[in-house]
């Protein structure tokens, strides 16, 4: 696969933005600046970025409780996200959604979803719109290994085949659903085989390798855009931290955690690109510096931004018009 220098920069920038954003979320959460839960995407950057790399604003994605990375990969504004995660009025959802409900329809982001298995049926609908309107666009549903056991997900797989819609099912298999290993929760050894049995092609890709994810996604896109119906990807990746920030993870050995870190997609990407002489160290440094600045600015802005005003905002926007 040949990517332009600009594309390589964009890929790294997106991955590093997720990395920097999530590390900061972890820190701000631990310091009490982020209310509620935080499920960070650390370790899975190549997956989200690879899947979303060739998508435009009019392609849709449906996300999960672990959605920050998907948002950033889809081009959602990082400041708006940080404001939202801190519950501020200027957040992408006016502070009403928070980490688990960030949405930005203008970017084709149909929302994080705090219900496991919530998004795949919605993605089928978004894909149906594309087919109906003959837009040539697609809808992607991100689903975890744990979520792959939820009935709604299976229904969505079958429905997508029956309706022959351009839906792409991206199963991010990070081996864990909360505190349970996929080898226990999935009765069958392979998620991809299960997906295939529903009547669509499904590719297994190394989710710690940006290029592998992109390559798989390109096949999926070609298939879906050509009107051949849905396509599946099982993206095998690693969850660096616990299920949520603060999870002590006694169920994972230090060796396993170290192994996960050793597979880090970012240095792997950098080394490969450096080796091939496509970008140089200064390029990476520049990207990192710029991203860190962006994230810092987002945090600083969000920390001091005002909260919503209950008198004005609490009961607003339940309906377009309630009558």
């Amino acid at each position: 696969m040949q990517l332009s220098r600009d594309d390589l920069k964009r890929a790294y920038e997106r991955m590093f933005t997720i990395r920097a954003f999530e590390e900061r979320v972890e820190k701000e959460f631990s310091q009490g600046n982020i209310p509620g839960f935080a499920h960070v995407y650390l370790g899975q950057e190549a997956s989200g970025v690879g899947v979303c790399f060739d998508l435009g604003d009019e392609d849709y994605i449906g996300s999960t409780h672990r959605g920050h990375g998907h948002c950033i990969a889809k081009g959602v504004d990082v400041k708006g996200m940080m404001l939202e995660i801190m519950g501020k009025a200027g957040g992408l959802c006016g502070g009403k959604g928070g980490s688990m409900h960030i949405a930005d329809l203008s970017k084709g982001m149909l929302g994080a979803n705090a219900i496991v298995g919530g998004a795949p049926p919605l993605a089928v609908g978004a894909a149906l719109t594309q087919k109906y309107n003959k837009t040539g666009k697609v809808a992607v549903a991100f689903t975890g290994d744990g979520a792959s056991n939820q009935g709604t997900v299976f229904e969505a797989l079958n429905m997508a085949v029956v309706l022959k819609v351009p839906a792409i099912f991206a199963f991010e298999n990070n081996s864990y659903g909360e505190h349970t290993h996929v080898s226990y929760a999935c009765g069958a050894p392979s998620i991809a085989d299960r997906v295939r049995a529903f009547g669509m092609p499904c590719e297994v890709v190394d989710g710690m390798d940006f290029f592998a994810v992109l390559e798989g996604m390109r096949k999926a896109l070609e298939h879906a855009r050509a009107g051949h119906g849905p396509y599946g990807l099982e993206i095998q990746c690693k969850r660096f931290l616990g299920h949520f920030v603060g999870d002590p993870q006694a169920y994972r050995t230090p060796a396993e955690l170290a192994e996960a870190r050793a597979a880090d997609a970012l240095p792997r990407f950098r080394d490969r690109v450096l080796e091939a002489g496509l970008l140089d160290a200064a390029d990476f440094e520049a990207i990192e510096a710029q991203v860190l600045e962006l994230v810092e600015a987002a945090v600083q802005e969000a920390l001091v931004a005002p909260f919503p005003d209950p008198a004005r905002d609490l009961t607003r926007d339940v309906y377009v018009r309630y009558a």
Partner: protein
Amino acid sequence: MSKKTYVQAINEAVRQEMRRDPKVIVIGEDVAGGQGATGEAGGVGSVFGQMQGLYREFGPDRVIDTPISESAIVGAAAGAALTGLRPVAEMMFVDFVGVCFDQIYNQAAKFRYMFGGKARTPMVLRATIGAGFRAAAQHSQTLHPLFTMVPGLKVVMPSSPYDAKGLLIQAIRDDDPVIFLESKFLFGMEGEVPDEPYRIPFGEANIVREGKHMTFVAFGAMVPRAVAAAEALAKEGVQVEVIDPRTTSPLDEDTILESVAKTGRLVVIDESPPRCSLAADIAGLVADKGFHSLKAPIRQVTCPHTPVPFSPTLEDEYLPTPARIEAAARSILVHA
């Protein structure tokens, strides 16, 4: 204007909206029928015929049969609505809500609020409701309280062919998710229904019958029963005002409160078991905001706290009967 049945009115509403707006699609189980089979496709048009003929007029792209996968049906409708279509999804019997409730109440209903007012989900979910058909506990429920309690949903219960058409057209044009509950009991009911499209706004009650001694509030299939009871009482000089709010959410509180202000007496008739029912909801409303007008206890006539029984002798006593409504009314007349 011509006589049409309740089912015909529903069919005409969807058909006319589909002609008017190419974004309107229909999706559900056997809304066409016969897909993949050896004989003709499209001849079913929903198991009670509400979507009959639409497949032939609009074809498979707009009248979409699905597998038996209600979560995927509702989710597909919600996802399509979020991205620009106006799906009219069908749940054959409302009883099936249990396998797809998440997509209704956590997804479609909550998007707008969770996303800070940035999403619209203009979908209609049609479902048939009601007991009386010996269809037993899993095919006879009404379940309107289940939807009414959910912020973000609008809930419609038409009681006549005229209302069915006007409310359904409003539902399809509405920008919020609407649950449209079709009373199987009324499917064959005939009434005058204008041929042209028209809308009935949500949250505007219909005063079905005027009266000054007592107020009945009833929805859907309970409206004719309330009227029957009111007519029986009228013979004895008791003039009952019968109010059909048409939509349970939004609820036309003003019309109810004004009526009770005039009559001082209220019976709420509800086609569901008693607990956390719509009857209780309206009784609670009036016990608060209409308290000072009340001359007597508020009676609720509901189904018993039981599943719907199969046997005809049991089922006939299950729903509120005109006799039970009358008895409830009489029991508060003596408090004059």
